[in-house]
């Protein structure tokens, strides 16, 4: 179950167990895809600041 209180997302029961498991025992496949994505962003996303304005390319 998910509920919201102020700035918190509170997980309980099966949802909490599942989330905890996903964070602490992530699937190898998910991690590999994520690391490739991080590398892709690092290599290809160009961010520059011109006159205080952020430009992404």
């Amino acid at each position, binding site marked *: 179950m998910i509920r919201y209180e102020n700035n918190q*997302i509170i997980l309980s029961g*099966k949802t909490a167990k599942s989330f905890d498991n996903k964070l602490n025992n*992530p699937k190898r496949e998910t991690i590999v895809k994520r690391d490739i994505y991080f590398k892709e962003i690092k290599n290809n996303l160009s961010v520059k600041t011109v006159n205080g304005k952020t430009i992404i*390319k």
Partner: protein
Amino acid sequence: MSSDLELELVGINENESFKNLDCGVPSINKYLLDGDAYYEHIMKLANTKLIRLDRKIVGYFSMQFKEIKIEESNILYPCICLKYICTDNNYQNMGIGTKVLNYVVGNSKNISDFIGCRCLLIDAITSKIQWYKDRGFDFLEDDDNIVLEDSTVKMIIDFRDNEVVEDYFEV
């Protein structure tokens, strides 16, 4: 990566006209147009950036910090939340959202490296679930609880470096 679009990110407090912005989702339009985005921005409860393409505001995104709490154990995971991201109806399917999301993920990872923050949380459009999964996002909830008929589903991307953690526990 998407095309050669050059997008400018503009602060919401700058004198920009966005009154005609319509992303097709009333609640997302409302957050910006009714002034809630501006209020939360100046109160530092969230941060909203307008997206400008060729001198026209074509979308916006809002970010804020949240905590994910595991009720039974009281464990708290700090997370960055992409509260809203939208592109005007006339500018969809041009790769604007993808480019902005890449910027958001990259910046969030930098913030995580700087101050410690476990993950980025997004409300993913259900039709794009596979796109997110291919980039290492996973459902916040148990996979069996996902209702694909909903318009969005909560997904996270974890910033933890697993090799470092595995090395730590092997010692």
